[in-house]
């Protein structure tokens, strides 16, 4: 009889979770009028996966999220792939210097990466000569930035709980050992 291993179930569940997150963002949060509901769950997920999962698995999940986000969004081609790859690399580099199992470190790194997104969007608008007024742009994105950054901590905890169900935190254990040593 065909039996799935724990990592296979974990990989499938993560794939399903990535789809669920993008659809939730497009179907529910994307239709909300108030910017305070514009929580960028996909970016939180990508940053978490980049920090906590092994590189190959993280890459696959990031490609899936980037493809789905591009499919729903009016963003220019390649925008999400570029942003998510940068998020993966930056969070991985930072993970070598900080003890990222602590939530406050995760929070700071997430806030930094999330700000990077707005810089990239600003750049992509400049590309088509639609440079927005800096302050107006910041004012517009502020609610989304604040809400997403605040919610990133409980969301990280939620994703960590899901991971712990499958004992899939090999990378975290490895990093813990490094920190302790």
């Amino acid at each position, binding site marked *: 009889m065909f039996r799935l291993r724990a990592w296979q179930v974990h990989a499938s569940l993560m794939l399903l979770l990535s789809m669920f997150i*993008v659809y939730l963002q497009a*179907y*529910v949060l*994307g239709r909300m009028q108030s910017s305070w509901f514009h929580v960028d769950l996909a970016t939180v997920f990508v940053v978490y996966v980049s920090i906590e999962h092994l590189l190959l698995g993280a890459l696959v999940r990031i490609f899936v999220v980037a*493809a*789905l986000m591009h*499919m*729903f969004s009016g963003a220019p081609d390649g925008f999400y792939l570029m942003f998510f790859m940068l998020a993966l690399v930056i969070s991985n580099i930072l993970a070598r210097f900080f003890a990222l199992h602590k939530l406050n470190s995760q929070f700071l790194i997430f806030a930094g990466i999330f700000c990077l997104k707005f810089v990239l969007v600003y750049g992509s608008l400049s590309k*088509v000569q*639609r440079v927005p007024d800096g302050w107006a742009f910041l004012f517009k994105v502020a609610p989304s930035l604040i809400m997403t950054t605040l919610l990133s901590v409980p969301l990280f905890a939620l994703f960590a709980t899901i991971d712990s169900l499958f004992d899939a935190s090999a990378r975290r254990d490895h990093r813990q050992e490094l920190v302790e040593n």
Partner: protein
Amino acid sequence: MLVFRRYGFALLVLSAFVFPFAFYSSDVAVRRDLSFVEKLVYTVSRPVEFVFNLATQQSRGLIRSYVDLRGARVEADRLKDENAKLSVKMQLLQEVEKENERLQKLLNFVRQVNLKFVSGQVQSGDPSFLYKSIRLNRGESEGILPGMAVVAAEGAVGVVMRTLAGYSDVLLLNDPNSNLDVIVARNRRRGMLEGSSGQTMLFKYADRGSRVLVGDEIVTSGLTGPFPRGIVVGKVARIRVEPDGVTQVIEVEPAVNFAEVSEALILLRSSREVDVIRKLGGVDWMKKLVESVPGRSGG
């Protein structure tokens, strides 16, 4: 696998930092058709979409029914009153229409407004929260093509930017990448309406000497782009002078509240320019042309 473990991250770092250079220096189209990988991911995720579609439609229906019931009596009375007024108005207008037809015949006018359309329901919004697009539940199978105009009861909504069998993505008029050829309804002065990162749109490149006032209605020109002329786009909300003292920034409030649009009509009349290109050079040539001009959409 061993090579990936050893050099994977280094390669990733390299590609992640080269990618932005390629992205910002390239002249590729803002949006193109979905790639094979994206189509594959979409196909795999269809069951999740089905569940979300069903759940959101049901919940929206429930909320709408509740809201409708709350003010039903007041609304019914108001509508009865309005109906009576409108029937009188309609009788008068029928007379005017007959007269108009007679005059048009006299002047050899050809009736231009003969629109076919498909109605669609809005399924989802833009998950980026920064770019502005919506997805309608009508696609290629209903004859919808990229470049077709989308309107709601209140006015123009946007332009179809991408289609698949069961859905079409619409770039809203207030998206930063949107352009539309418009005129001021009061004095027929022409200009270009561009989307912005905010909720308003910007009226640009107005004719020399155009006098635009706050409250002026902006309508589609019908001269270029997929929209027939005279469809309401918005009203001038603010006019401010740039620090250089010469340039004016005219902000236009959209007639349609894009966040509340639940149904829209897709006009089965594509852009005249796109039609000509399609007939002359075929689809491939048109694709190449569209890809070579970044940021072009709408009018």
